[in-house]
């Protein structure tokens, strides 16, 4: 965050600012051991009953971080050596202090709303507010740190792997903790603290370093991420509520990954993608042994999956073949219409307006649970003394599906076809001029993405028990698209994160119900303003948002020519 305070003033005031910032942070730390509210009904009981509440302990990380960031350079400036510039001490302290202020404000607002008025805030709450304001204002007066160079620090491989495992453990813990929260206010405060921590670590340079570390140990990262995801049901003690949300997240994420091929790789804007999920779900429902199934053919699920995917991709071909010849905007409109046509058609295939295929708006209820070679998905199973319920079964199945999708996606992305796709996204005419068969490739992406959605839909049908047309409305398409854009188009990790956020938030913010869309709109606007490439940036895409680099290259070239009369071929050591 850049401020208008002149640099000389900042340098003059750097010691007082540090001191005041420390005082504020210490006040916040003390406040955690004081009651924040009268009564015990607010957040997860921040009324202090002997020890801080878990939420307050999580909050504690922020002021402690401020103390470390402000204190370490103060005490041991001489000893810091190269670490003085490797990480951004001051700017991170500023970000962290402002983030704590944000978290405190959200917490106080939540207390006031939940208990009815600001009078319910106890002394600890006010101490926290005062401390947060103090340290936020003080840190603004600190001189800005240079860009952190932590990402260039070379570290031993085991340190990198350890860091990756540590990060994943924290993710698992946070996810389990967030899912377990029943109070919307507490969830919001937790989200604010987490966002603050993430922003602070990014500023500090940790993410640049982690990015390199994970790029160097990609396989370790993927395997341990899956291990963590696999272990998740064991942390839930058989609780079905959370596993239900988690399975929904994975179904949603698998669909989003399919859309990611179409939108993220090839750059085709598809606004009716949910129809392919619906096509898969309806196909699976009709082929299931439900009493309401309208055909007399019930193959095993393995076959059903393939049929569902094929039906969806045929639909994709039908809609794609005529429309993929026209340019972007038309495709968006046609797919938007296609999504609606699909829903209305499913409504009308009820026996009165057309043949009875879907039972109309009643849909197909009573779809039995999956059964793989005697493994009944409906039954809970006990593994290692922990009961694993119905939802966990679906969760693991979807985890396998997603793993397969990721393998296919990564191989595609680095293949000749993947290169062709990205080339179409960047400049379709140039791609055509290079000999890329653009129409065929676009159609392939469309059909392939639809296939994945169809597969996800076939699992969703069994998971949901009933399939009705009104589950597949435009809003769902919009959410899928938002997950892809928010997470980071063209990336796997980003889309998984985006899908998780977009599916988890509504579950946890039920009291917001009517304002949910408003909140998402706000989130999207903020994202597009501050990080248009999404949470995880595609290495190829980052440049799209940083055009000034080319101008810089041109300037350097001009300078070189001016100085040497020619372009010096030995340009090594020239850092852009």
């Amino acid at each position, binding site marked *: 965050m850049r401020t208008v305070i002149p640099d000389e003033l900042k340098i003059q005031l750097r010691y007082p600012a540090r001191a005041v910032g420390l005082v504020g942070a210490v006040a916040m730390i003390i406040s955690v051991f004081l009651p924040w509210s009268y009564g015990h009904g607010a957040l997860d009981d921040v009324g202090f009953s002997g020890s801080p509440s878990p939420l307050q302990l999580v909050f504690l990380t922020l002021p402690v971080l401020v103390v470390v960031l402000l204190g370490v350079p103060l005490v041991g400036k001489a000893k810091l050596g190269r670490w003085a510039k490797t990480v951004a001490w001051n700017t991170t302290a500023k970000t962290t202090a402002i983030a704590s202020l944000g978290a405190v404000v959200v917490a106080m607002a939540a207390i006031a709303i939940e208990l009815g008025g600001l009078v319910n805030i106890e002394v600890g709450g006010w101490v926290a507010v005062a401390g947060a304001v103090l340290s936020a204002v003080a840190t603004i007066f600190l001189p800005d740190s240079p860009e952190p160079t932590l990402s260039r620090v070379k570290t031993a491989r085991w340190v990198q792997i350890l860091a990756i495992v540590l990060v994943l453990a924290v993710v698992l813990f946070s996810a389990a903790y967030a899912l377990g929260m029943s109070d919307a206010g507490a969830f919001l405060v937790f989200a604010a603290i987490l966002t603050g921590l993430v922003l602070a670590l990014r500023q500090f340079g940790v993410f640049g370093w982690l990015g390199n570390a994970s790029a160097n140990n990609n396989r370790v990262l993927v395997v341990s991420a899956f291990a963590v995801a696999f272990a998740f049901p064991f942390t839930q003690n058989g609780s079905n509520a959370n596993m239900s949300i988690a399975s929904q997240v994975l179904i949603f994420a698998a669909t989003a990954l399919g859309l990611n091929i179409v939108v993220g790789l090839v750059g085709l804007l598809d606004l009716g993608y949910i129809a392919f999920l619906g096509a898969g779900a309806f196909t699976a429902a009709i082929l299931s042994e439900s009493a309401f199934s309208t055909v007399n053919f019930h193959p095993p699920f393995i076959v059903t999956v393939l049929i569902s995917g094929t039906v969806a991709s045929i639909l994709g071909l039908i809609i794609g073949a005529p429309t993929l010849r026209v340019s972007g905007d038309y495709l968006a409109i046609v797919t938007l219409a296609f999504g609606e046509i699909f829903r209305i058609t499913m409504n009308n295939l009820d026996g009165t307006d057309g043949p009875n295929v879907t039972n109309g708006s009643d849909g197909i209820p009573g779809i039995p649970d999956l059964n793989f070679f005697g493994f009944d998905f409906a039954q809970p199973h006990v593994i290692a003394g922990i009961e694993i319920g119905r939802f966990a079964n679906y969760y693991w199945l979807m985890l396998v599906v997603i793993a397969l999708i990721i393998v296919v996606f990564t191989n595609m992305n680095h293949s*000749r076809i993947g*290169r*062709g796709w*990205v*080339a179409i996204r*960047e*400049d379709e*005419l*140039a*791609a*055509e*001029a*290079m*000999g*890329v*068969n653009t129409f065929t490739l676009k159609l392939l992406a469309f059909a392939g993405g639809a296939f994945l959605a169809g597969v996800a839909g076939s699992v969703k049908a069994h998971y949901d028990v009933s399939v009705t047309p009104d589950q597949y409305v435009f809003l769902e398409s919009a959410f899928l698209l938002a997950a892809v854009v928010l997470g980071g188009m063209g990336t796997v990790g980003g889309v998984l994160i985006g899908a998780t956020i977009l599916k988890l938030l509504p579950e946890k913010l039920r009291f917001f119900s009517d304002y949910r869309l408003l909140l998402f709109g706000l989130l999207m606007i903020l994202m597009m303003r501050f990080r248009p490439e999404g949470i995880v940036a595609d290495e*190829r*895409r*980052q*440049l*799209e948002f940083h*055009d000034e*680099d*080319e101008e810089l*290259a*041109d300037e*350097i*070239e*001009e300078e070189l*020519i001016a100085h040497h*009369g*020619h*372009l010096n*071929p030995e*340009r*090594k050591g020239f850092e*852009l």
Partner: protein
Amino acid sequence: MLEIKKMVVAYGRVNAVKGIDFTVEKGQIVSLLGTNGAGKSTTLRAISGLLKLVSGEIWFEGERIDGQPAHKIVERGIAQSPEGRRLFRQMSVEDNLKLGAYSRKDAGGIKSDMDRVYDLFPVLGERRTEAAGLFSGGEQQMLAIGRAMMSRPKLLMLDEPSMGLSPIMTQTIMKTIQDLQADGVTILLVEQNAQAALSLADRGYVLEVGQIMFSDTGKALLGDDRVRKAYLGAD
């Protein structure tokens, strides 16, 4: 090698190219000259199959190629470095070159051709993993030419390779074009920089508002009064 017969190309109802004839012989450098809007780029796009002809014919190595899709034409051996370079800016140098070779499937040949491009333009080789958008205008032009060479074309069409470049960079690029000709590549060069283009060209055609006004050898055109007045700034 390439023969254009009475070619008419239109954007909507406006004819941008109004019935032109010209030929490119094997091993030659042929220049198409003209001001903005003369129809030079349109001509190249039509040859590449990116635009449909209203009427007329395009023959390449004794076969008619107009009406064929663009990727088939690349497979036949016609490559283009389009106007404004149109690199895949977010992709690395290496990926750009690989896309240039999209029509080919011989991994070994692609690899050796890629090394050839790096030999020709060392700066590309040094920074092969960097995104194309990070390069300067001159370097991007090198990459655009290198990318077009990657399909190992028999006919290489270059659309204003000197555009926006310093005089020194222009010289480098023109030198490269001559080297390519020496390697046996036939070149169709579209330029506004008449001096540079004509001094290389075996033959030149001057286009004005969609029609060929006159043509001659490169040398003769350089000495021609009409060309000197219109394109070389002579009184």
